[in-house]
């Protein structure tokens, strides 16, 4: 049987604020197979991080899953007792974050932070856990790992810290690693190294990787499958080649066009006009319609359905719909 590792099934997340309800994610559906790399792409605030956090069961207290569910190996994750989720976290599902500097506790040494999941989930004795932690640090390519383990976060550089974060997340050989913009805060050269490391580890450990990013270069390099989100919705998803070669949704097209291509000297990069709509009051129709050059009357009348565009490739757009079924 070919059951996906993770399935997002029409997941909707709402955040309750004093000013009103923010619909942070709506009807998000996609799946991740074992060992696969899925890239989640979109602007800040489009709902990628919220989706990932709801997978981890780490939604902020004001947010809640309004409908839909996430399944892990076929079993629903959403609605499970917190304790069940907690046991999965760090063990089967691991996550690394954008700012390694702030994601590590400043008052604990690196080693102390790595041994925690080892002791918690793998029931290692503290000494054994420490040995393993040093080994993990070695594995992520840090020189003098024993010294690093005794250091505090502020004594290390951003790249080193992100490696340490990766070591920490890898400690229990997770089945899925979520990397939330893992290189955004790093220098270009360092970020390339980190991505390499992630790729190597993913291969050797045979784990799935959910890569959240807005960097299409990274996507092209790493991903097997791409999910594009806009204003809380998945607008297009498909295998990486299909998305890059044949982007269907005007938003995806816009994104790709706005990407500088080496060698192509344009006077000005094309950009998407207009602004992201206020998440507090999203329109009851396609939320990209106001910025879309191809928008038609229909686009302002309702939410587009998904259109299947071949193997695993689908998009939610009236324009595409029309074109396909024309």
């Amino acid at each position, binding site marked *: 049987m070919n059951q996906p590792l993770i399935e997002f099934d029409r997941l909707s997340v709402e955040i309750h604020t004093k000013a009103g309800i923010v619909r942070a994610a709506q009807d998000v559906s996609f799946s991740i197979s074992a060992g696969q790399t899925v890239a989640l792409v979109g602007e800040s605030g489009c709902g990628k991080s919220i989706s990932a956090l709801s997978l981890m069961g780490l939604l902020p207290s004001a947010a809640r899953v309004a409908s839909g569910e996430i399944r892990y190996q076929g079993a629903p994750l959403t609605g499970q007792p917190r304790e069940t989720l907690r046991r999965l976290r760090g063990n089967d599902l691991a996550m690394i974050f954008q700012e390694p500097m702030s994601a590590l506790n400043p008052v604990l040494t690196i080693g102390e932070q790595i041994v925690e999941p080892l002791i918690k989930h793998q029931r290692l004795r503290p000494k054994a856990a420490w040995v393993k932690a040093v080994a993990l640090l070695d594995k992520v390519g840090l020189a003098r790992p024993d010294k690093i383990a005794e250091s505090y976060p502020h004594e290390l550089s951003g790249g080193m810290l992100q490696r340490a974060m990766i070591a920490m997340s890898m400690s229990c050989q997770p089945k899925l690693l979520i990397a939330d913009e893992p290189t955004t805060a790093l220098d270009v050269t360092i970020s390339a190294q980190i991505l390499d490391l992630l790729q190597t580890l993913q291969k050797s450990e045979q784990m799935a990787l959910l890569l959240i990013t807005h960097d299409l270069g990274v996507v092209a390099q790493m991903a097997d499958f791409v999910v594009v989100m806009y204003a809380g919705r998945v607008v297009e998803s498909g295998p990486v080649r299909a998305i890059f070669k044949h982007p269907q949704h005007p938003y995806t097209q816009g994104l790709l066009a*706005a990407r500088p291509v080496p060698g192509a000297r344009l006077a000005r990069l094309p950009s998407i006009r207009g602004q992201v709509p206020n998440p507090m009051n999203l329109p009851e129709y396609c939320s990209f319609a106001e910025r879309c050059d191809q928008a038609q009357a229909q686009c302002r009348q309702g939410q587009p359905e998904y259109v299947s565009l071949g193997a695993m490739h689908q998009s939610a757009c009236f324009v595409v719909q029309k074109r396909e079924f024309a």
Partner: protein
Amino acid sequence: MRFFSSKMRQRQDIALAASLTPMRQALRRLRHNRAAMSALIFLLLLIAVCLAGPWFSSWQLDTTNALQSRQAPSMDHWLGTDFLGRDVLTRLMYAGRISLTVGLISVVLSVALGFVAGALSGYCGGWIDSLIMRVADLLMTIPSLPLLIALGALLSELKIEPEIRIYMVMLMLSLIGWPGLARMVRGQILSLRERDFMLATEVLGLSLRRRLFGHLLPNTVPILLVVATTGVAGAILGEASLSYLGLGVVPPTPSWGNMMDSANSFIDFKRRPWLWMPPGMAIFLTVIAINVLGDGMRDALDPKS
């Protein structure tokens, strides 16, 4: 290879904030805080009653009446009379004026002192900073109550009209209060000074005064407001404690603090609650209201929460 330029993100932020300046945003948030708003309304009502109330009272502030001493509340005297036969309600309202004024003025004074000292210290740096901070250290080192007691006796030596003793109480409270605030303002200024916009004012060649008051002050206003609000509560309580030690507002001028003196007599405390309950409740409710309001303001000014 980033496809969202940082400019674009900035534009988003601006767009979100464009319609509302931070101050207005804060005010809007405050208006939605029900607790803070009820506190504010309570305080406004209280001030109104204290200001206008005595006009409608048929009793004089200071007229003693041996025949009407310590009367329980009645239709004539809504809150009874004190041991000299004076109307408690009338005195309570006058006392409210005094206590609130003491609170307000002492805070305004210490905030002003604290701000100027802290701002100069933070902005000028160098020896001015050292000097001001050493003085602040010195004042913080000296325990406040002994200093207040000694100052109280010392100040009474100066040939000051007794009515002005009230203002000396305020002065004393603010003399004690400024160093903490100065440190806070200095810290604030130090971090603000490093921001780009201050660099810009320097590039533009604005004068120190203009930079300080035109650009730095407005940025420290929120925190000052919060501190000042809770400071008023502190000063009202402080005045009450000083009155207990006989250093506060001097009778027969009433203040909530010295009206509560009667609670010191155990008998009055037990049998004549109308002597101490009204000023006690007045202090209690006012201080709670001010604290709730201050808390609401803090929440409103701090978008993080």
